[in-house]
């Protein structure tokens, strides 16, 4: 049974999503429990797989029994084991959390919303688990198209933002496909391991060079890496809040994973870091991503929108850490990938709770939030500390490795950008907390009176947020084990 775990991870959510679409017509009430069951199976499979990979090394699974270059294989090592577990667990938590809000806003479209959510998760899990470059594209499109649809289900300007996302996202996916096409022409294979073997003989080829650049640009577009980030803030801000907690934490992070996977296991570290000579340019883009992201975040007056810019900063961290090209930087990037999934999840779930009770989450609307919703705001404080990088929350530990990597590479620009964005983080979040904590704002006449009575979101929404917030500290305390057990085994030996 355990040898079929890799297939289970994709097949179960896929079938569940079809089932949910059907149930949406037949018996709406069953959508939630069926999805819960599907995600629970997927999450436990991912966890089982991760533990297995940590103990016995990478697993290769041939889909349908076809041999590697012809059939599709799933390859799992600790890197994507970690990402799989993070994706599946955050999807599970988000599913439970979203129950009350989906019931309130999407009662008439329950089957469609839940089915699309499940299909989106299928796409992400498939992208992460696959060892085939073209299969990855297919699953990328599944995840993207469902994301467009989900975002378009939001109110007012959501459909316009979604359209913008469709244009940019499709462009990114096309670039990736084009890159894979070049590789196929040059090598005649789509299997990642096979590609890696054949590319070592083609290091001088101009076509491979073009393939590398196009693929990277495509992926950067999809992960909203500066300056290709334009679509993200609007899309994530206008996404309906019950599902922005699913898309915002996962989509960009999985794309960062794909970039790391393609660089390390298709082109290979030697080609990506030594032959291409792109790292200087990419590093400065990452510095710009972090600094511009911070400045743009400072200009926001709405909590949810501000958080979308924080995502841009975090993408800059991860891309920068990875392209530092040393062990500490890469450890930081991979650890941050894991931590950031849960940081962003916690942030967007907390914002969801606020939106469930409050008219909106622009700063003035947050007045009195601490006394109204103390648990949600507590979780938001924990997230803020993690994003700023205060120990013992997990954000500190990945930032430590990133800083150490920058110091070792003597890239002081990135070092300064990291410190700068941490300081900006304090300003960003404490500005929000000031609005929510201080009651001195003069009560203008005509302004409707804001009650300061306890008005917390439903238990089903509060408990998951608090769990994730606690998880941020747990991840931090165990970061030593995570680094030695999960991150270090996948860092190429060429990095010291």
């Amino acid at each position: 049974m355990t040898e079929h775990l890799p297939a289970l991870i994709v097949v179960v959510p896929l079938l569940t999503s079809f089932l949910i679409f059907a149930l949406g017509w037949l018996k709406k009430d069953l959508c939630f429990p069926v999805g819960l069951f599907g995600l629970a199976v997927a999450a436990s499979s991912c966890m089982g797989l991760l533990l297995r990979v940590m103990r016995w090394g990478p697993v290769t699974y041939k889909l349908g029994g076809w041999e590697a270059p012809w059939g599709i294989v799933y390859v799992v090592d600790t890197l994507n084991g970690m990402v799989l577990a993070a994706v599946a667990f955050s999807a599970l938590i988000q599913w439970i959390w979203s129950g009350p809000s989906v019931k309130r806003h999407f009662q008439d479209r329950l089957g469609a919303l839940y089915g699309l959510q499940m299909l989106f998760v299928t796409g992400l899990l498939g992208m992460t688990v696959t060892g085939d470059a073209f299969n990855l594209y297919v699953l990328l499109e599944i995840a993207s198209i469902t994301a467009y649809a989900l975002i378009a289900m939001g109110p007012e300007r959501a459909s316009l933002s979604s359209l913008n996302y469709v244009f940019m996202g499709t462009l990114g996916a096309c670039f990736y496909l084009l890159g894979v096409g070049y590789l196929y022409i040059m090598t005649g294979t789509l299997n990642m391991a096979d590609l890696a073997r054949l590319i070592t003989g083609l290091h001088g080829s101009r076509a491979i060079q073009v393939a590398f650049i196009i693929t990277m640009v495509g992926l950067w577009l999809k992960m909203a890496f500066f300056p290709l980030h334009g679509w993200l803030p609007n899309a994530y801000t206008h996404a309906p809040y019950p599902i922005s907690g699913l898309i915002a934490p996962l989509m960009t992070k999985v794309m960062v994973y794909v970039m790391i996977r393609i660089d390390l296991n298709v082109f290979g570290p030697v080609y990506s870091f030594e032959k291409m000579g792109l790292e200087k340019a990419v590093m400065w883009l990452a510095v710009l991503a972090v600094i511009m992201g911070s400045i743009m975040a400072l200009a926001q007056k709405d909590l949810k929108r501000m958080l979308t810019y924080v995502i841009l900063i975090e993408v800059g961290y991860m891309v920068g850490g990875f392209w530092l090209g040393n062990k500490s930087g890469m450890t930081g990037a991979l650890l941050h990938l894991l931590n950031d999934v849960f940081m962003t999840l916690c942030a967007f779930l907390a914002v969801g709770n606020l939106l469930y009770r409050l008219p909106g989450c622009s700063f003035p609307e947050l007045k009195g939030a601490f006394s109204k919703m103390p648990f949600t705001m507590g979780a938001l404080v924990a997230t803020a500390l993690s994003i700023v990088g205060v120990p013992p929350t997990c954000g500190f530990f990945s930032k430590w490795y990133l800083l150490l990597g920058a110091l070792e590479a003597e890239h002081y620009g990135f070092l300064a950008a990291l410190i700068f964005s941490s300081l900006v983080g304090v300003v960003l979040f404490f500005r929000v907390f000031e609005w929510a904590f201080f009651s001195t704002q003069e009560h203008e006449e005509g302004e409707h009176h804001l009650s300061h009575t306890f008005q917390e979101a439903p238990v089903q929404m509060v408990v998951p947020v608090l769990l994730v917030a606690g998880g941020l500290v747990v991840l931090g305390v165990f970061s030593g084990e995570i680094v030695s057990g999960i991150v270090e085994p996948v860092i190429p030996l060429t990095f010291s």
Partner: protein
Amino acid sequence: MADVNSTLPLLAVGASLGVVPLLLSARSPDVREGWTLAAGLAKLALVLSMLPSVLGGENLFFQVAEVFPGVPIAFRVDAMGILFALVSSSLWIVTSLYSIGYMRGLKEHGQTRYYCYFALALCSTLGVAFSANLLTLYLFYELLSFATYPLVTHHQDAEARGAGRRYLLYIVGGSIGLVLPAMLVCYGAANTLDFAPDGILKQAGFSGPELATLLLMFLFGFAKAAIMPLHGWLPAAMVAPTPVSALLHAVAVVKVGVFSILRVLTGIFGLELLGSSGLDSLVLALAAATMVAASLAALCQDGLKRMLAYSTVGQLSYIILGGALLSPEGLQGAMAHLATHALGKISLFFCAGALYVATGKQRISQMHGIGRRMPLTMGAFLAASLSIMGVPPLAGFLSKWYLALGCVATEQTVPLMVLLLSSLLNAAYLMPVVYKAFFLPIPEGEPTERLPELSSLCTWAPLVTALGCVLLFFFPGVLLDLTALAAREVWRV
């Protein structure tokens, strides 16, 4: 000094954290305050239970988790740490009693929140005291910064918001902007962050200017120590309720700052390296400048709490000065001053708060004749002032004596002169308050009857701590044993 594994340090740090759920669920103020006091007593008992083994030369050690290769989150209880822990945990109990009188007397809002964050702040203070390495210290230092923010801004008005902003700007800005990179550089060079008796940077091969930069990053980064010009947050933070100013801004928070600097000087740089690179004079100069400038600033204040805040800024630098004298006596003086200044200054703040609760007066110019209405409170104020000035038979004399001994032993006349000058200035800003209170007549139109002082916990607390100042002078046994032990750990005499 042998390390002995024990969970006691963890329990002592966590004791005040464990009380938070109880505080939140308490239904009546009596139950809530009862829990606070119980936690305080439990914490003190746990700290005291570790005292015999520390005095016996054993350091209790507990490792929570190894988060980076070679750098765990870990506690080690040594003489320096336990001295600081004893001071802060015993004064927490007195402050809790005082808080009950003060907060009820003024009918403050949000008292449950207040007691919770107070407990959290004490948890972090003990965490700093017991840290075995710089990373653990940084962790609790940051935790303390954020735990005290809601206390500083307790009144939730515009003034509190401004003070809170300044507080975060100085303290978090310093710790993230300066300490964090400095700590990384140390880790990159030494692959450890443990406090070692002769430092960890000796073999790192930094040049003089690099070391000086690193040292300055630590000195200014630990902005809680309020070395000028990064002292501005301390007077601003006086908008907080008086018990917060008393315990946190005279004892816990600021002492965490100087304690961190002492740890960096002795455990990271090592006194030998400081001496050989000539950096001790840099620290001495900064400390001396702060001592004089802060005392002069205190002279110009009219707000009683603001005056005390500037006095604190100056007194903190005594401790840093003691560490930079590079002599065992100097370090003993520094550690002793950490305790004696805490007792003296907390009494002064308690008195200021008691005056405010009873009469609503906050300015020195309003103090005329107040001593006739509240003789006990002002008596405690007098005793504590004398202790701060360093007059025998009060505890403050002990630490100044050792600091002076340290200057003499290393034949440094300039620090000695600054020490004496600063003591004179202390008298110049503290004595006028006492003079006005006792010798000037009560202004016409104000009530003249004596206030019932002993009916409020607010007045009992300063009496207790002022009495402590006297008793510590006559029974300094444990204090001097611990400071001697701390000096021996660093100097290996």
